[in-house]
């Protein structure tokens, strides 16, 4: 696809582009963030500080960022894919050396006005790079072993760096998003089957190694897995989060206790109630109806993204949109599974709702790219 072809199939120009944005998605993003503001206001005991107000400011900045990114033609962003990936990789290496130590892990670079988490950025640039790669690669070669190995390396390098930080949650997301993109690009089934089989093999080996001399992971890591499998064994220790989280969710009932009426979250039974466990507050205060509504909003974003990808004839654009949607899905799916006790506590925030600057801005940047692909699609 040459630039010429883009130009011939006229895309909207100038300010008129704003009309061609995927407005349903923009509105959905704003609504989800709005839910976030409400919840942050509630967990702070009915106060805009310390969480809701900065979060609103960040969303405003993020929304402007999204529209600005969307105004720039998608082929410009595509040409940046390689550089963006390498720069993010360099930043990841930089946190190893200059990273600010926060919450027991090295994840941040302090830019002065904000703390940048390169691992967040990597989720987007990895998708961009892989989309550009498969756009460039002739379709026939997609499943050739050599052309499969390349993206695998491209995925594994940042994953390993993030794992070293250590941030297990984000590295799993990176791996899943990268793998998902390869799947979307049409890499042969057999590769995925093989990876799945060996993963199962590895997990079995790790468990078999327990208690033997060549034990592969540390004792306390085993204990965490135990508690995940049966939280009741350690209700005041490590299983505490999961048990308390389930109690908070369950006590919400059909309609919840009402706004600002949640007892579980406000009584500090849960840690990190403004970040990873914020969903429990929503579920407790607004009940099944409230949590279903949020889940519905998330599902709609996925549906609109897939629709936008399907009507887009440019391979880079559709892969990019699908990749971003997949990332977004993994985000909330892992977080919700975690608070519902379906996955171990790995520390993944709820997108747009959890308090956090880096994640919010990076997500809005991603949707900016998605919007750009949508606006400048081949018609």
């Amino acid at each position: 696809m040459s630039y010429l072809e883009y130009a011939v199939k006229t895309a909207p120009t100038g300010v008129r582009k704003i009309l061609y944005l995927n407005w349903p998605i923009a509105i959905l993003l704003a609504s989800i963030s709005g839910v976030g503001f409400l919840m942050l206001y509630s967990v702070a005991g009915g106060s805009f500080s310390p969480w809701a107000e900065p979060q609103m400011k960040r969303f405003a900045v993020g929304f402007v960022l999204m529209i600005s990114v969307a105004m720039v033609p998608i082929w410009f962003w595509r040409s940046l894919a390689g550089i963006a990936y390498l720069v993010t990789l360099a930043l990841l290496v930089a946190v190893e050396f200059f990273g600010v130590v926060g919450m027991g892990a090295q994840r941040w670079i302090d830019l002065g006005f904000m703390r940048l988490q390169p691992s967040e950025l990597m989720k987007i640039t990895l998708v961009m790079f892989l989309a550009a790669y498969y756009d460039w690669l002739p379709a026939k070669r997609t499943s050739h072993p050599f052309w499969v190995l390349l993206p695998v390396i491209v995925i594994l390098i940042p994953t390993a760096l993030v794992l070293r930080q250590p941030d297990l949650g984000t590295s799993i997301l990176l791996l899943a998003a990268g793998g998902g993109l390869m799947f979307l690009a049409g890499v042969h089934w057999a590769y995925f089957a093989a990876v799945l089989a060996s993963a199962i093999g590895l997990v079995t080996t790790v468990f078999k190694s327990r208690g033997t001399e060549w034990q592969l992971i540390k004792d306390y890591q085993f204990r965490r897995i135990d508690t995940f499998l049966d939280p009741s064994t350690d209700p005041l220790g490590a299983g505490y989060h999961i048990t308390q989280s389930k109690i908070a969710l369950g006590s919400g009932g059909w309609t919840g206790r009402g706004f600002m009426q949640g007892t579980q979250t406000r009584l500090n039974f849960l840690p990190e109630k403004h970040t990873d466990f914020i969903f429990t507050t929503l579920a407790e205060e607004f009940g099944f109806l409230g949590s279903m509504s949020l889940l519905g909003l998330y599902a709609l974003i996925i549906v609109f993204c897939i629709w936008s990808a399907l009507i887009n004839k440019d391979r880079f654009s559709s892969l990019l949109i699908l990749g971003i949607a997949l990332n977004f899905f993994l985000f909330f799916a892992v977080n919700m599974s975690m608070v519902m006790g379906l996955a171990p506590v790995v520390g993944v925030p709820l997108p747009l709702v959890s308090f956090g600057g880096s994640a919010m801005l990076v997500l809005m940047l991603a949707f900016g790219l998605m919007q750009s692909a949508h606006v400048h699609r081949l018609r």
Partner: protein
Amino acid sequence: MKKTRAETDFSHRRISRRAALLGGAQLLFIGGLAARMRFLQVEQADQFRLLAEENRINVRLIPPSRGEVFDRNGVRLAQNAPSYRIVIVREDAGDTDAVLERLSRIIPLDPEDIARTKEELRRSPSFLPITIAEDVRWQDISRVSVNAPALPGVTPEVGLSRVYPQGSDFAHVLGYVGPVSDYDLQKIEDPEPVLRIPRFQIGKVGVETKLEPLLRGKAGAKRVEVNAAGRVMRELDRREGIPGSDVQLTIDAKLQGYVQARLDQESASAVVLDCDTGDVVACASAPTFDPNLFVRGISVKDYNTLTNNKYRPLASKTVQGLYPPGSTFKMITAMAALEAGLIGPDETVYCPGHLTVSGRRFHCWKRGGHGWVDLQTSLKRSCDVYYYDLAIKVGIEKVSEMAKRFGLGVKHDVPMSAVAQGLAPNMAWKQQTYGQSWRVGDTVNVSIGQGFMLASPMQLAVMTARLATGRAVEPRLIKSIDGVEQPERGGESLGMNENNLRKMRRAMDVTVNDRRGTAYGSRIIDEGMRMAGKTGTSQVRNITAAERRAGVIRNEDLPWERRDHALFVNFAPIDRPKYAISVVVEHGGGGSKAAAPIARDITLQALYGGEPPLEAYPTKDRERIEEQQERLRGVQPQASFVGRDQA
């Protein structure tokens, strides 16, 4: 890579297919989540509601009380004292500014504290208690209690905090505790929950940190009923924690206080070991600081004053400070030669004031030389050339090995911070460290404790104790834990020829008690308590040939940082050694002038168990000593209770 239209369509179709697949899977998963939500929130809602009601019962940790530390006679060195603080809860206070305003009229509040409290109140959720002031006096607490109706949301709280009644005397041995920092947490794999209690104190330096697991104890827990606002309504039951173990040190607080006072503001350190048990009876590093300042976080100004002081008060010089041992090392060189059978009974060496080794001239400290000297005379008058000669004959490997047998270059197991290993160099070490082969000049330097040789005052005291007893004495700092006596560390025999050891002791005896000995000025008159010792003066700079020609500059004329270190090691009484002592005065000049008098005073103080009679001193010193005793009696250990009244 240009693609054909057909190819593009093909790939687009495939993307669409897979997108539909993956999209379907995603929606399916969302469906699964919804089903799970329904299960939790609708089907099991009643059950969880019940659990939530029970959740009104909250489990809270009770921090254990930290073990106390005593000296060998039961004097309290570290204890826990109640400390009062005032906290405010925003949602109970309502208009916090007005409440703070009223509070500041009732009790004195630092404007800085008020500003910090306001900032924290703004940033934190409304139900969290915010500390307004810490370490509040009891009378202020009562004022707050009396005025409680006017101060909604303000409550006094009591906690335990570490206090060091002996103040600065034990700053380096005991160290101090401080609130757990993020940095501390990060170092611990899987930290105990009790460490996450805000302002929980853990050992940061010294015995406090080395014995942390013993001193900390186990946290208890209490179940409390809270109301919907999170306020504690009543306590249901509690399981007390297990308090930390009480620890008794081998140090004698009285002697330690004396040593610290005697070292005064010099940059110096001294160690007193009990030769029989290895007990560290005193271990002082000067200048010192008040550990109580660190307990609740030291102010930046105070901290900078401490770190900018060129005498390094924070350094624990007894175990951390490494110095060339200088002439105090000569006993090791001599022992290596004696054990190797290289010194005949009447063997003498001629000292012309220097010795030329492979073209380089090594000087004796006495330019004119000592003439013919034997072993005893050489030690007594500290002749360098004699030891140059010995070391060349015996070789560095034997000297280095002998140093290690006497505890130099070996890390002793003392529960203090930053215990240094020192260095007893040999050929392999130099090859490994510098990639250069050992030269005979290096041996010459080591023979008089210069060059690569490095030892801490603790190691020098161990060396002296071993010389005095012939046993492998190891320092013991912990006398008992929870009343259980710890094994003594007098050690097994070093397996050295008793005759050789006796020769060394005799040589050290005459060094102090012979009219021509270098430490004669610091002898003890009291017959039963006489000491044997060795002076040392270690250079911290090289004296160039040009400088030597122009006449060596006197120490007093040099800037402080370039003056020689003064050292002295001794044991006493000579017949039945009880104490082994080392004193190092950084840049103090000559060992006989700067270090030996201090060592004598400490020795007498230790042997008499208090202030010695003036008769123990030589007649001409008595007047000066009397004055000094008068002055030191006035120096009391400053028990520091800054900003606190005993309740």
